[in-house]
């Protein structure tokens, strides 16, 4: 049946900056949601021609295949260093380091803290799903107490491997960052909040304000071993009480 386009109004479409390719992410994964948010914000701010993204090592290693902007890989944990190098050359571009929890809080803690401390003029989007996804479900620095992973088969024991690290609170001890917020993407309301935070982070950069950090609590049904609906609930019920949502800083 031929659609009479004249009778219909477009109310929803794929963001222009989101490349039309099949996703490699698992069903229920939060990365796809955040990618789409990022693409929408890039469209809304009209910065597709001026944005450079840095992809981490982790599930989002192929980020640059999904967002229609210039992109670079970075060695595991080094995305803030690579983003620093890029931004120091192109002060007029919008540079984004997109990182996971192992990347930002384990192997790349030094780079993450020092880039924030220098107040580098880029924006970090930090996906916290409490587990290593790409390597198959090992403990992350943000893995919850008693959470079972491949490398904590008896549950994470803080007496042995420490407590989960709270990135926003950690970075909030630094003087330089201008924006720090923790969000979630388990329901529409929180997705919209996340979008506002990411947009603010990029606007701060455009306005030359300084370093912005947005943490997103996200789902990993595959490695958590539960279905997508349960995963969304788990973020709300287990992660959120420990990782309090909200804005920590907005200068």
């Amino acid at each position, binding site marked *: 049946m031929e659609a009479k386009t004249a009778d219909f109004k477009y109310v929803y479409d794929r963001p222009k900056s989101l490349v039309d390719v099949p996703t490699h992410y698992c069903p229920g994964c939060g990365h796809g949601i955040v990618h789409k948010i990022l693409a929408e914000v890039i469209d809304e701010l009209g910065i*597709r*021609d*001026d*944005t*450079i993204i*840095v992809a981490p090592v982790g599930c989002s*290693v*192929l980020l*640059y295949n999904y967002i*229609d*902007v*210039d*992109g*670079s*890989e*970075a*060695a595991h944990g*080094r995305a*803030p*260093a*690579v*983003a*620093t*190098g*890029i*931004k*120091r*050359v*192109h002060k007029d*571009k919008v540079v984004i380091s997109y990182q996971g929890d192992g990347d930002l809080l384990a192997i790349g803690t*030094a*780079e993450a*803290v*020092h880039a924030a401390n220098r107040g580098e003029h880029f924006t970090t989007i930090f996906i916290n799903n409490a587990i290593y996804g790409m390597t198959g479900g090992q403990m992350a620095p943000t893995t919850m107490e008693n959470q079972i992973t491949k490398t904590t088969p008896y549950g994470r024991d803080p007496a042995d491997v420490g407590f989960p690290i709270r990135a926003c609170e950690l970075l909030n001890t630094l003087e330089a960052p201008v924006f720090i917020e923790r969000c979630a993407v388990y329901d529409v309301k929180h997705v919209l909040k996340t979008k506002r935070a990411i947009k603010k982070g990029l606007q701060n950069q455009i306005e030359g304000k300084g370093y912005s950090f947005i943490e997103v609590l996200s789902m990993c049904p595959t490695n958590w071993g539960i279905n997508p609906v349960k995963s969304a609930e788990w973020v709300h019920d287990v992660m959120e009480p420990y990782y309090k949502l909200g804005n920590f800083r907005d200068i």
Partner: protein
Amino acid sequence: MSDRILMKGNEAVGEAAIIAGCRHYFAYPITPQNEIPAYMAKRLPEVGGTFLQAESELAAINMVFGASAAGARVMTSSSSPGISLKQEGISYIAGAELPCVIVDMMRGGPGLGNIAGSQADYFQATRGGGNGDYRIIVLAPASVQELADITIEAFDLADEYRIPVMILGEGYLGQMSEPFSLPEPSGKTFEKPWALTGAKGRKPNIIASMRLTPENLLEEHNLKLKKTYDKITEKEVRYESYLLDDADYIIVAYGTSARISRSAIIELRKEGIKAGLFRPISLWPYPYKELKKAASHAKKVLTVEMSLGQMVEDVRLAVMDDEKVDFYGRTGGMLPESGEIIRRVRHYGS
């Protein structure tokens, strides 16, 4: 003579980099190359450049990755243990085909070792300390003048072949002051259509060493790298020969070892002993063919190094005659002694 100035090797490399158009430098302090970051910290702001003291060598080399990906001429410097840390980034830079210049003022090892000059990281430099099938150009100057001249050349080679270029000196070369003339800029320019500049009016540029799928994509990528390496091997071999034409005894040495060997050769010639020097300047690509030819008429080939014997493996590969190749080295930051070189060569004739 008025255009000659006295400068430390470490400072000369900094000034030469600025002459070469380097405006971005990222590094972490380590002796015996601390004058390089100090010099860049002072000079780069004067020419509108960026100096950044990174939180680690790992961060520094990855900042180099970013700046190079963004299209800038960029440099880092360190010394042996710091270069070990940089190997991760060097492998990624090589894989992503990014140009950059890395200065290594080697010191004594293994481990923390000491801070005296050493040549114990020949393997690390020429064999690659990072993972994967890759090569980097390695240039070994033997004087402050050559250090400055090679720095200019290094930036051009890096841009021409999209490859990391390492300038391999050591503590003595870095700390030594010698008269030199400031080098001229080469005047060469390189288009970088691959650089990350914002994808205005074009498809996005992606800088990556990763080639996940399909199965043969990484092999294809590596074979492309190999083509570049073959071209470099063919075109960019550099060496110096001194009194080789009639030499019965050839000393093979690079950097500071070559300076000491040259003094020994002058003494040996005074005694009527026909000794000559073969000094590789490019350690990769190594001058195998040229050394093979030079050694074909020699009775003995003595390799002199500030190590337990690393370059001597390349000398053996070139000469292909184990009976002919001898080795003398000092390690742990000690310098080879001219007297010992002379005694050895005298002994060959008796």
